């Protein structure tokens, strides 16, 4: 919590997160699809689309889940800091 998030900006941030997530998932799906397409399906286009779709779906799902339960906190991993540095 380096910089405090204003409440009005919270939603915006949520949306950003959502979008970013979705894009990432879509990209991942795309990548998997391409791989599948290239190596397994003889360069057919449908795995790519499929993968992209999977990605999009996943993203959408995540977004929905996030918006539905707004009180759920998003945790972040904190690196373990040695004694001397602290």
């Amino acid at each position: 919590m380096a910089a405090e998030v204003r409440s009005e900006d919270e939603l915006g941030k949520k949306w950003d997160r959502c979008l970013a997530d979705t894009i990432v998932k879509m990209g991942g799906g795309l990548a998997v699809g391409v791989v599948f397409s290239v190596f397994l399906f003889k360069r057919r286009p449908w795995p790519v689309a499929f993968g992209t779709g999977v990605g999009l779906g996943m993203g959408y799902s995540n977004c929905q889940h996030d918006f539905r339960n707004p009180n759920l906190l998003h945790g972040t991993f904190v690196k373990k800091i040695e004694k001397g540095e602290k």
Partner: protein
Amino acid sequence: MWRASRRVPSRIKCLGQGRPTSRAQQPCRNYAEEGADKSAKAAQARLQAVGSLPTETSSGGVGRTILTATLAVGAGVGGLTVYAKTSPEFRKTLEGNIPYAREYLGAVLDRGPKMPDLGLGGVVDKAKDMVGMGKKKEEQLGSFLPKLSKSKADEEEKQRKAAADTAAQAVPAAADHRPLPVEESEVATPTDDKPREILAEPIAFAVSVGTDEPMPVAAKEPSAAHKESATKRPAKEKKPVGVEKPEETAAAAIAASMDEPLPPESKSEPKAKKKAEDKPATKKKALKEKAEDTAAAAVAAGMDLPIPAKAMTTSGEAVTDKHVSREEKLVETPEDTAAAAVAAALDQPFATEARETPMRTPEEVQAKLLEKEIDDLADRAATLAIIQHELQDLKRTATSAIHAQEEAAHATKMHSEQIKHAMDEDTSGPLGKEEQWQAVTGAKEAQVDALKQAEATAAAARENLEKVRAVIKQGKSSLSEPDQEILSAEEELGKLAYELETAVGKVSKAQADAQVMQEYQALVEQGRKQFKKELESIMPDVKLGGWRGKLSEDELNSLIAHAHRRIEQLQSQLAEQQLLEKSRMDDALARQRTEDEKETLALLSRELERQKRELALAQDLRIAQARDQYEAEMRTQLRRQAGAHSEHLQDVLRVQEQELSSKHQAEMHDALMDERDRYQVKLNEAMARLRGVEAAIEGRADIEREARKAQELLIACETLKRLINTGNEEAASWEERRIPLSREVNTVKEAAGDSKFFQTLLGSVPQQAMEAGVFPEDSLRQRFLRVKRVCRRVAMIDETGGTLFQFFVSYLQSLLLVDAGRRSLPPGKEVDPKKLDTFTLLSYAEHSLENGDLEQAARFMNQLKGEPRKVASDWLEEARLTLEARQAAQALAAAAAAVGLGNLV
């Protein structure tokens, strides 16, 4: 070329190689050929380019070579010059090896060509020199003297140096100088002549400037004087000799100057005496007149005093009083060598003191003393000179007279001898009778001449004697104390007189003898004559001289009888004579005795005179010595007294100084104390007043302090309020307008002091506001816009969240619902909280915000529900903080104002 070797790829698309394909193809390009062609063309072109140069040489080639050569040379020279400018060693090597390099480099590198010298600069320098020279000249002419004295001073320097050499020879000459014999003095004078001749010219010039005197005379004397001055200074210890010397040389000089011979002497003594007396006087006057200028020169030489040229003449044209007085002194006393003698005789400082201008009285007095002494010495010197001269004259004449006298005596004696010899009947001498008588007459003549001569010389000598005596007498009378010289001169005089008298006496004695002889001769003659007469009477024809033939008996008998008769007669006469002789002898003896007595008396008187004179001389000498001694002693005593006096003065002055200083100190101390007291009184007054003022001030100080504190508090509160209202004005955007209030709150805390009220109020300021600060209203307003937008977009979502679809629908709704702007709350109308929905609330809030009512806006926003509430929660929080802080600040300000107002009264 290498392309030709490469394998053509299989997929070439040109005709001619590879298998033909369906695509349109173009003829293959033969790269090799093309390349070769191209290169050949290029080579040809290059060759042409290269070959073109020789073909163009014929046209304008010479000019071009010349141009290039010039350029190359110029570049070389320029390069060398530039390098020489930077590197001095290189420049040196260039200058050393290349001719005219130095000039060229100098002209080029050393500030360019010089202006031609127009010769005007020298004028300025010359002018400066002249001015400087003029100044120097003025400094040199420290006195109002003309260049005369300066040149003379230079000449004196020269002479001193030149004469210093002759001093050695001059001093021994003077050492063996004794005034008695004339020969030695004559020996001494020639040595003087030499330096005189050497120095004659400059001195003559220097002196003749002011005088009309003949130069050689003037030349000789001052030269002698200068020589004296020269000898004086180095030979200071030979004082008596030195003192003698000036007189001697002065005498010589005077002798030289006195060209006129002695006038023919008169026989009479008194006349001679008078003349002798007059002579020295006149001679002295003439000497004075002749020696005046030289005296002045000598004075200048000896003393370096200023002498106006005019004062050198006897006409007496005075320039100033000082010079008049000195001039008179000059006129009175010839000072040709006196100054030099003085400088040597006295201590040197005297002379140096006298050299300074006698403006200050002690020096003046000393100078006057010095002058007097100089005058005395001059007098003495002059008289001595005269005396010496006269004495020498006298010596000459006296010796000549003595000689003459002796000659006369001798002649007389000779004459007597001759007579005796002639009288003698014995003719056995070498001469016959006739010759003898002739010799007698000769001797008589000689005697007469000699006597005449002797008489003349004696008279002259006597005259001279008288003269000298007169001069000595005058000298003795004029001088204050008799000098040794004078006394010795007197001695000489006496001696000479004595000798003269003795010689004269001798002559007279000889004459007396001659007289006796003559009487004897007369008697004999007479007797002979008588005899002859008788003989004649008896024998008249017989002549005595000639016995011619024989005489007769009668004659013989008569002769014999006569002779016998004569004999008897003579015998009787003789007896008579013998008797008479005795008595006569007695008479003669008696006479002789008386004469002898007279003689002895005269001799005795003479001797007594001599003795008296000697005693007188000795006494005078002793007196002179004693006087000198006393003078010296007195001088030392006087000096001692002067020293003691000065010491005493010093002591007295010191004592006085101390006294005065102590008195002054006391007075000053008193004055200081008075001043201090007065000052103290004033100070006390002032202090008292000050204290009064302080008390008054302190009386008001509390009030003032309170007022100030209140003011401070007020200011602090106002500051706080303002800060809360405006925030950080330098912030770029509304987000950064927060400023922590802690500082201002602390200030207020300090200003408030112990007041509990204020502390409580200050405590009510929220902590977060202190640490993080509060947003000013403007920021909240700006922020509200965004909040409103977001709230409108999620108006349909409640606290539980919503699906994406719901979010989308809500967003759609917000788009479709037109924002009518701010809706104002109808005044006085109550609001039903249940009827308020997000949009209304938002519009109400916006409206109140626009009107500056943050509180109302906060109230409205507080009514939000669901997701919009969550969205606006932060804003609300901030608004609440701001409101709290503002409230606190306002309360504080009001309280402070109240306090201030209260204190004002």
